[in-house]
């Protein structure tokens, strides 16, 4: 029961929030926080007394038996972590957009629905339901960018929609083909995993799934939508986009290819790693060339998520663990950076690095928080990002030294763009208009402290995190024939 609540609670919460302003000012904000907090509590409750087997919780109920569609929700360490992140980011988003007044009821409802759809993706194990939530997720994000963005938001929202919708086709095609050709029509991932397709068929199906995941992950050839979406999205939009939507791509890659097409994955893995390696370097170099702060962070997200792709294709314990940790670390660090840039834009009206500067003099708290996430952006040891990248590099050393070398190059280039970012914003003389603005307000400071704590704690004491991911990693590697490390 706890699992379906994870999806229904935010969804109906969103509906309730729509009507909340009638009861009083800012009720929709408190309502959303209540909904998210409740979802988090339910998650913690159902995770704590989950059984010790492969899945913490498993819910199986028929939805449309004649078509073989059923509500098959399962949660293990990895999905629990993802769900926790989605709820936490939901709360962070509400805190950030405390001054958003333009249609704020709808705004908060859309945030709830994004979280609901993402939770659906993290839990669904019936392929059709998974594809359903996968497509559903695009709509609230599209609304968020399209309605509340800045600049030419229509262009960005449309680009986001087209990219993700077209990619969704790949996933749908594969899912329908698998469902149809199964002996008796079923979309149950576990049943289909024993379907025993021949390797070339597996490769093709894997490419279908991979297309959808790689566009969402943004890996270079398919990443054109991310920089635009991030620059035009409102702060909460960027956070949800970076913290949540990117993770669904990574989660999908982490979960389904090894489960459904082990041989296909083994065949495709080297190309996947090569693509990831290219993505890491390409994203990092482009990040150095940007003038818009949010575009810079968007490209860094591409670099980080390419590392996740390399990790997932690595097929070794360390690589997968690294990918898992990097996903969660990136969720924290990039959300915080977007939050800070959003707050900065809210005050100075610009994101252009050439016009910002001198933050240390005018807003020390702002500068200090920037410094913390500056460290996270360049994967300083002690932050979870470093742990993720170090594990992936270790995995790569076990698989292929060239990819490890490229991942190390990304460590160096990450310093270049990170120093460029903090140099332009914190250092230097304050420009005239940035001189007079107040420091971080409490409702912006608390989320930063939460995200910062998340990054540092998981960086210094990763055993909690890795302990959570172990069952998922072992299960992912079992079909690949990779025993214990």
């Amino acid at each position: 029961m706890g699992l379906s609540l994870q999806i229904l609670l935010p969804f109906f919460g969103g509906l309730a929030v729509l009507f909340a302003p009638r009861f009083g000012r800012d009720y929709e904000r408190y309502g959303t926080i209540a909904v998210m907090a409740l979802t988090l509590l339910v998650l913690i409750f159902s995770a704590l007394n989950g059984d010790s087997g492969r899945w913490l919780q498993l819910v199986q109920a028929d939805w449309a038996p004649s078509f073989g569609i059923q509500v098959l929700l399962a949660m293990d360490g990895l999905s629990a972590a993802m769900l926790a992140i989605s709820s936490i980011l939901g709360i962070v988003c509400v805190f950030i957009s405390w001054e958003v007044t333009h249609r704020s009821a709808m705004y908060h409802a859309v945030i709830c629905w994004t979280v609901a759809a993402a939770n659906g993706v993290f839990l669904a194990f019936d392929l059709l339901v998974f594809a359903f939530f996968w497509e559903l997720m695009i709509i609230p994000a599209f609304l968020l960018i399209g309605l509340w963005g800045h600049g030419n938001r229509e262009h960005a929202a449309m680009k986001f929609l087209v990219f993700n919708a077209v990619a969704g086709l790949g996933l749908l095609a594969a899912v329908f083909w698998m469902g149809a050709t199964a002996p008796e029509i079923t979309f149950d991932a576990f049943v289909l995993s024993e379907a025993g397709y021949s390797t070339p068929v597996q490769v093709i199906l894997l490419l279908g799934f991979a297309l959808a995941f790689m566009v969402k992950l943004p890996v270079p050839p398919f990443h054109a939508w991310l920089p635009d979406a991030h620059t035009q999205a409102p702060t909460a939009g960027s956070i949800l986009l970076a913290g949540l939507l990117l993770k669904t791509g990574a989660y999908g890659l982490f979960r389904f290819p090894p489960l459904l097409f082990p041989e296909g994955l083994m065949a495709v893995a080297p190309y996947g790693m090569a693509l990831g390696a290219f993505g890491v370097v390409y994203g990092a170099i482009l990040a150095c060339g940007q003038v818009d702060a949010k575009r810079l962070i968007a490209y860094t997200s591409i670099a980080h998520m390419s590392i996740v792709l390399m990790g997932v294709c690595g097929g070794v314990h360390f690589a997968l663990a690294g990918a898992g940790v990097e996903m969660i670390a990136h969720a924290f660090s990039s959300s915080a950076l977007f939050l800070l840039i959003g707050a900065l834009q809210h005050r100075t009206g610009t994101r252009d690095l050439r016009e910002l500067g001198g933050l240390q003099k005018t807003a020390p708290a702002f500068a200090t928080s920037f410094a913390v996430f500056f460290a996270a952006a360049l994967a300083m040891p002690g932050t979870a990002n470093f742990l993720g990248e170090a594990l992936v590099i270790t995995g790569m050393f076990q698989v292929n030294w060239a990819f490890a070398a490229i991942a190390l190059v990304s460590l160096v280039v990450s310093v270049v763009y990170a120093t460029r970012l903090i140099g332009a914003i914190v250092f230097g003389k304050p420009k005239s208009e940035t001189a007079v603005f107040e420091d971080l307000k409490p409702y912006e400071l608390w989320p930063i402290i939460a995200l910062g704590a998340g990054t540092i704690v998981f960086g210094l004491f990763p055993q909690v995190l890795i302990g959570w991911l172990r069952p998922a990693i072992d299960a992912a590697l079992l079909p690949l024939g990779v025993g214990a490390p």
Partner: protein
Amino acid sequence: MLAYLLLLVPLPPLGGFLLLALDPYRLDRRPVLALSLAAGIAPLVLFLPLAIAYFTGAVGDMIAPAFTLNFGQYEVALAMQLDPLSAIGASTVTVVASCVMIYAADYMSGARVADLRRFFALMNLFQAGMLSMVLAADSIVFFLGWELMGLCSFFLISYNMTSPRAFAAGQKAFVMTRIADAALLAGLLLLFLEATSVRMDELIPAGLAAEESRAAIIAVLLLVGALGKSAQLPFQTWLPTAMAGPTPVSALLHSATMVAAGAVLLARFAPLIEATPGVAAATAIAGVATALFGALCAIAQTDVKRLLAYSSISQIGYMLLAVGMGAPGVAMAHFVIHAFFKSLLFMAAGVLSHAGGGSTAIEKLRGTAYVAPISFATYTVGAAALAGFPILSAGWWSKEAILGAAVEAGPFGQFLWLVALGGAALTGVYAYRPVLCALRKPLHDAPKGHESWLAVAPLIFLAIMSVLGGYLVEPIIHEMGGHAPHAGLGIEVMGALAAITGLIGSVAVTFIPSWNARIKRARRLRAGMQMDAIYYAFLVRPYRRIVRLLSGRDGRLGKHIGEGPEAQEGGMGDPVGTATVVFGLWLARVVTAPFMPDRFDTVIMRGAREAQRAGLWTRRLQSGRLRDYALGFALGLGVLVILGWGMTWG
């Protein structure tokens, strides 16, 4: 139980950092200074008893585990340890750090409270990083400390927020050290894979047991890591520009602790380096070459801090030479002595430059000897130790140990010894230049400045250590398990002669106008053989050109698609991204092209037009005239009647 005390050592500076950085209690000037000093000196207070107990044998090697994380048969156990290397390193670091903190309290008193808070927070964080690196018992904590130092050096070098030069220096330092850190990380991870555990005591034997090529690669990676951090030859350009930071930063980071961390690393992994003779030779050669290069460049400097920066490079070159020659103990001894006299030199130079009107140019130091006599005296002692003034200064003993180790290491060692001897002579030349300059009579007689005891006390302590430190060399080498090299009287006499010639050379250079002019003209030498410019031309500018090309800001990547934000930036950035977009748009065009003039539509419309014309034609029938209708009526009647009649025929 005492082991857990080890874990406590780096905590006070960390606590100091948190309190100062986050500043929950809105401290003002005095509490900030008090807190910084307390947090800065606490590790010394905590560690000294441990060190003394350890050196006197009361306490053996200890390991304090932090937490363990097992990963199948791989085991990641973070811990801190107390062994000869960490004891020596940690005690040096704590002593020097405390002295610098006290000095900084006075030196930085002019800054704003916010800047002061930021400065001391970073200094404390740095000390925590250095201590955790030195005391680390496993590669993860080691690398954590290592990188933390890099981060703090970036923030401390660019401490002066408003000057772009300081930020550029910080960025350069951070990027170059980060390249080396990447190599180090690779080495450590490979070792980890080799040893299935992170603990040093398992890494080193596993590294030795590894097969030939892999061990060589690991050793090379570790060497590159050390070269980067210690600003040795290929990576040395960042240290001179790092002098843009305040003097205490230079005194702590860029003389005693951070740059010397490379030597600590090599000393820690010395068995691995020695296991592969090629790498050992490379270390030695790199060390000697850098020593010579540093000494030469230092002679041509006009700024005292840049002079001392190049001298740091050269002195650490000597340490690498010692490790290359297979004597990590000797390297550590020189590390300790060097820490003392180099931080002393930097701090004294700071006071002298303040006395001489704020600029650190050597010329400006004329006559400061009389303005700040105590600082000048301590600076002279430090310079003597740097130059290795025979018998009297500690520098002599540690340098002799290194030269002796080089001689004992066989014919190849003797050749390196010869080069090192030349380096020692050159060191003598540049070491005394600021001293002699300060002795010359001032151009205009400045009043005798007031030297606050807060600044002078550490100087005096360090001066004493720079003299008495010689006695520490022997015990340190024994502690590290090495044997004190006795190269025979001849070698020692040659060393003394080199030091004396250095002194004479320095006097000649400062007082003989022609020689002095030649130094001033040695612009290439002063710019460090233009290696900075070479790196910029061949590495930085191409990289920047690629970045501008890819991000489309130089507009060469073709016209723009659609009206997205790229439009304002001129030209299309992100070629791979736009390639997908262009492909998508082309595909859409191709698929919809046949339907563009919609053929179905045209056919249907043509039919519609026909229908309309027919409609018009029939309209004419409905003329509205009565008679026409009557005609129609009659026609109908006639037809019906004929039909009726026709039917009757049947």
